[in-house]
């Protein structure tokens, strides 16, 4: 069931209503049943994978909770890591690795060693396995006490607003909320509805509209050149942002209707002044997860001394993992490699840049400097967007080559596209989205809006609903991040 489907429009109010109608002690059961039902609709057999991940991590955490010695707890942590990562590798990466082995065999002049296996990837596996791994590491570290109630724990893993595409929640943040009794809070409820509406707007009016122009370029790479590719790349970044952040808004909004507060996943990433800042604003729950459970677990010393090159190497490793997490394609690995490399370059050249800013006087014009940094960061992110997708790797390089080719622009499809009202509307809506999120980030806007008379607020909501209906694109349905 997709968030932007009629099914969800019926499912969500029904669950919310039931949730508030039943006594507190039964509420987690309602949510658990609803979450499994929600997941079951994707493919019934995938529920077994979800249950497997839940049971193994639950058992390991409970066992670890009974062992005071950290060293003795390690074996349970290793078991849960092996099972969860094993499932992730089997379902998501096995085809990639078998292809790799077969390619090497081909280079050596041998026949394919491993037969090709068609394996369907269970929906949301990258999200919920990371959630269970994070939880068991926290229990191992003693940061969080193991959850005794298996039902509550199963709900933590399968909670329907986040099971398919996050945010990747931490046990210490979400599990206590399942134990707490939430009375109906009109303010939180309204803020949830507002977020759902905004998320739907980003998905249906912006992301799906932009995909009408981005998809043909990425699926017919040979036909596009120069400015068309440049426009498609910028629009693709906006499309992915509107799609994924729209999904997250709906997820967070849905949880708020029942009194739960999920972690934010985006914080205006295109206002970042560096690549490092961008990743602290984009898919925050993934990058913070990798920071806490991978980056800080890597060694920072060499021969007993803390060295910079170790830190830089760790950065590259983590961002290659970020890329690879998105999918078993070389494209994503290269995408991650670029991100890590950009950050290392920024680290290495920071003293030089500081001096450059001082010499040129840029540091005395902070607004100009900020604008330059934001633009440079945005362009750098866009320059890696060629690799952000499951298309063949050679297509990415082909696009980069074609980007420099302006000879075909004469009969390019750019002009008819620009004449198309949908593209222009899409661009206007993107600008509106960025402007509006900037306004919301300034706290005074929200309080000013909420202090307006009810007629004005309702008129604004009504306009938004009607705008969504009239200008939404209702033919495309899938969310971009579901493929991960």
């Amino acid at each position, binding site marked *: 069931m997709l968030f932007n*489907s*009629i*099914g969800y429009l019926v499912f969500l109010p029904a669950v919310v209503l039931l949730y508030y109608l039943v006594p507190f002690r039964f509420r987690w059961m309602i949510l658990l049943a609803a979450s499994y039902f929600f997941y079951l609709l994707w493919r019934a057999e995938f529920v077994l994978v979800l249950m497997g991940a839940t049971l193994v991590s639950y058992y390991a955490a409970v066992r670890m909770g009974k062992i005071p010695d950290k060293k003795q707890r390690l074996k349970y942590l290793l078991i849960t890591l092996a099972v969860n990562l094993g499932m992730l590798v089997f379902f998501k990466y096995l085809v990639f690795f078998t292809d790799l082995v077969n390619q090497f065999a081909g280079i050596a002049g041998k026949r394919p060693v491993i037969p090709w296996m068609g394996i369907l990837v269970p929906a949301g596996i990258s999200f919920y396995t990371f959630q269970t791994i994070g939880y068991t590491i926290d229990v191992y570290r003693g940061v969080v006490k193991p959850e005794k109630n298996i039902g509550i724990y199963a709900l933590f893993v399968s909670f329907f607003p986040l099971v398919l595409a996050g945010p990747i929640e931490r046990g210490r943040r979400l599990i206590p909320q399942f134990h707490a009794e939430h009375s*109906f809070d*009109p303010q939180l*409820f*309204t803020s949830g509805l507002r977020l759902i509406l905004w998320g739907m707007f980003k998905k249906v009016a912006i992301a799906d509209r932009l995909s009408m122009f981005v998809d*043909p370029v990425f*699926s*017919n790479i040979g*036909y596009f050149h120069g400015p068309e590719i440049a426009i498609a790349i910028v629009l693709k970044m906006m499309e992915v942002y509107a799609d994924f952040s729209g999904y997250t808004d709906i997820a967070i909004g849905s949880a708020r209707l029942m009194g739960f507060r999920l972690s934010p996943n985006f914080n205006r990433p295109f206002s970042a002044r560096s690549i490092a800042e961008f990743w602290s604003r984009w898919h925050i729950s993934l990058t913070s997860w990798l920071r806490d459970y991978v980056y800080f677990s890597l060694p920072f010393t060499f021969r007993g001394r803390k060295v910079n090159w170790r830190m830089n190497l760790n950065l590259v490793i983590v961002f290659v993992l970020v890329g690879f997490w998105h999918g078993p394609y070389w494209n994503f690995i290269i995408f991650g490699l670029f991100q890590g490399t950009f950050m290392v370059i920024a680290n290495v050249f920071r003293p030089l840049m500081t001096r450059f800013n001082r010499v040129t006087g840029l540091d005395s014009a902070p607004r100009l400097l900020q604008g330059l940094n934001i633009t440079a960061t945005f362009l750098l992110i866009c320059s890696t967007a060629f690799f952000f997708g499951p298309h063949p790797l050679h297509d990415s390089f082909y696009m980069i080559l074609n980007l420099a080719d302006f000879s075909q622009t004469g*009969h*390019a*499809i*750019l*002009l*008819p*596209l620009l004449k198309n*009202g*949908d593209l222009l509307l899409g661009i206007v809506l993107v600008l509106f989205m960025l402007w509006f999120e900037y306004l919301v980030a300034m706290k005074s806007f929200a309080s000013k809006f909420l202090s307006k008379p*009810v007629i004005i607020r*309702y008129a604004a*909501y*009504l306009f938004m*609903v*009607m705008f969504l*209906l*009239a*200008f*939404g*694109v*209702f*033919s495309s*349905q899938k969310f971009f991040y579901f493929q991960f």
Partner: protein
Amino acid sequence: MDRKILFFKKLLVFVIMVIALNALLNIVYNRRMYYFRLSRQQDEQFEACPDSIRYLMLGNSHNRVDPAILGPGFSYIMPKEVYAQTYYKLKYILEKTNKRPQNILLSIDPVNFSPRAENELSFDGYWRKYLDYFEIARESNDPGYLLNWLSGNFFSYAGNYRYVLMSLQFRNADMQVVKNGYIPARDYRNFAKERNREALGFEIATVYLSSYGRNPVLGETKYYLKILSLCKQYRIRLILLRMPMSDEYLKYAHRMVDLEKLDRAIVTLTRDHCNNFLLFDYRNEFHGKPGYFFNADHVNPAGAAIISTKIKEELGKKQ
């Protein structure tokens, strides 16, 4: 408690406002949308025409065969129509009216069979009277089609702002131009005068044919087969048409689809399921003559007249 009650009251008022405004927009759209006005005209004329129809034109806007030229018949085409819609319309005509067509003229262009056509149901506000959305959803195992039923009944205007603008532009259009159901081919542009024909041809090919991928396979065949089955059941002769494509569109179509292979597959499929059909191929009829096109994939009135005349001549020879 008062706070909660007040909140629910306000929420209720808001929901009522949304429902009322939506209903109003839905009614206005269904009454005033340009294509719906044309189709109402078609429906009235169809009611009035004799029960025995020699030639019935079905399908999308590519099928511009004019009954005034061809002979006694009726054009019941609708823009953006896909075979699922054609099937249900034909079923409705055969099972719920007394009309009996002897020949059905149907276009079999690459776009009709593209994988994209499988899930393209447009103008549900019009089609809701014909289509059994529940059956489509059940047969395709895709409950998403119920959304079409819902939008057709309650949200006809949703996502269709371009047709609102178009309807405003044609608000004073003369509906009397519709004769025997035939909606005249558009003539307010001429493809020959377009400076960027190459790009326009590419655009159309990309939008409609890129979903074929590198290995052309027949995407939408289920409802085509059902149409064949209905024709067989009611002893109707099927006249299949490959309608003209502009050189520019054809050039890029060839790059995106193996047209020869596709054509062979369509003919084989038809032959396997229908024993009474004719095939007229006009795809290259206007090679080097962009002046007969309105845009890259639609003939203009002059082009439509030539094709209608040619079909009449061919049919005359066959008889």
